[in-house]
């Protein structure tokens, strides 16, 4: 039971040729002197839609920050499309909590256009193709009608969709969404997952952090269980086992399988601590 789960090293046979979209090699990192991630080993094939699961404080956001290049590794490395990862438009990151000032005088259209800035470069102004990309990104998240709204005049879910649109405007090959569906209604959640499915078919590698296990079990072709290190990575049916979940969450969860659907609930007989 204490051995590394075999799904970790399992490669799927239909894996496309060429380098992994994201390759994490023996990564350890943390803040000040406290390690948060230790010996994380991971290889994500291009076009995967991965659900990243772990309890609060398990290091999901930290893993994203190392993948974007915001958080330097203490040990090991992250390769993005075969190259050492550093901040850039290839990897689009939508943080868990936007710390922006909502009274800032920018419109929805301007915020999404910011996603174009790194690709434009200094002294180059947005042109017609950029405006088209922005419009398209807003359409994809269902915010087409809100382009000239000031950013503060939106609901929480609408703001999150605008930041998703900004990430799409970067035209990334990798998309990292940190708990994007918290605080979003069921319809919007459904739309976002439709959109993610669509993006993956276009070859965009997407990792979505979530602590909604039932949602992950149904929506993702691969699940990554994280708590300090990788506890499991592979198709939901292989990874979402009682044993691996309890190890990841250090608590007791019940797996319910109804037909081909999987539900995860807390075991009412055990005290759950986050």
């Amino acid at each position, binding site marked *: 039971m204490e051995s590394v789960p075999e799904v970790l090293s399992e490669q799927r046979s239909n894996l496309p040729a060429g380098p992994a979209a994201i390759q994490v090699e023996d990564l350890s990192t943390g803040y000040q002197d406290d390690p948060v991630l230790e010996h994380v080993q991971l290889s994500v094939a291009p076009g995967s839609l991965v659900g990243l699961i772990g309890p609060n*404080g398990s290091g999901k956001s930290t893993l994203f920050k190392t993948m974007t290049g*915001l958080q330097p590794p203490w040990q090991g490395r992250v390769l993005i499309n075969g190259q050492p990862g*550093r*901040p850039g438009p290839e990897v689009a990151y939508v*943080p868990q909590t936007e710390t922006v*000032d909502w009274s800032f005088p*920018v419109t929805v259209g301007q915020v999404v256009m910011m*996603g174009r*800035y790194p690709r434009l470069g200094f002294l180059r102004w947005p042109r017609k193709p950029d405006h088209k990309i922005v419009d398209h990104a807003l359409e994809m998240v269902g915010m087409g009608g809100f382009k000239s709204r000031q950013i503060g005049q939106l609901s929480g879910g609408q703001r999150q969709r605008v930041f998703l649109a900004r990430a799409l405007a970067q035209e990334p090959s990798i998309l990292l969404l940190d708990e994007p569906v918290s605080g979003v209604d069921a319809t919007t959640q459904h739309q976002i997952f439709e959109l993610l499915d669509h993006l993956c078919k276009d070859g965009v590698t997407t990792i979505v952090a979530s602590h909604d296990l039932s949602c992950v079990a149904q929506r993702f072709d691969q699940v990554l269980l994280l708590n300090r290190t990788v506890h499991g990575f592979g198709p939901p049916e292989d990874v979402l086992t009682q044993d691996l979940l309890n190890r990841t969450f250090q608590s007791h969860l019940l797996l319910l399988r109804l037909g081909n659907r999987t539900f995860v609930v807390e075991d009412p007989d055990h005290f759950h601590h986050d």
Partner: protein
Amino acid sequence: MIDWLMEPLGYTFLLRGFVAAIMIGVICAVVGTFVVLKGMAFIGDALAHIAFTGIVVAFLAGFSFYIGALIAAVLAALGIGAVSQRTGISTDTSIGIFFSGIFAAGIVLMSLGIQTYTIDLFSYLFGDILSVRRDDLISIMILGGIVLGIILIFYKELLFVSFDPVVAESAGLPARKLQMLLLILLSVTVVVSVQAVGVVLVVAMIVTPSATAYLLTDRFGVMMALGALFGAMSAVGGFYVSYYADVPSGGAIVLVATLLFAIVAIIGPKRRNFWKLATVSPEPSQHQHPA
């Protein structure tokens, strides 16, 4: 009325002051747009006071006041930038202690030095736009032009980094360097404006016209342009008040700017918003996400 307006402009030295006032009003508001939105007013005030000590040292050592003020303010900006990026916590107290101490040293040095030097350092405390000399105007134009040029070059990037530094950095923009650049631009702006409005009121010249513009628009570029307009109007209005009422130009200019703000705040469309901005006051470094 026309005669009244044209009279001071007939004198070359006053015309110089008039042109300098407009230039300073514009630069202050353009830089002030970032200062207002990022809650950097306190840093601007600190830089102005530190610049004053640089001016005193320049006089005592016998070199150009611009060089003294620039060195002092830019060094202080780099120091403040390093401290606030490293800790990520509120650095107001350490900045406050640091700048007051340096300003105090400037005041003491001024009192000691003023017996042997006839030049009135008092005018750098409260501003004297009517005493702008030819080479002062040239310095204002060159330094102001550089500040405006750099903001034009990095306009998009400064906007992105000001709005959302974390995502801007993750998308590949040099966020920390741009934030440092903003501090340096602020320090140059302070130095350029000190002669016109004085150390004590420089921060008002930077913040008030932009804050007035903020009340009128939801768009960043419009805020900057309107701010520049209000800044120029305040500077010109203050210029005439200073000339006819024979009061320090800093007080006159800032009084006009404050009046403009009061008028817009009372009759303008989004009164409440400003107070929200004033109380939220976002921190410049935002590298922590609550888990």
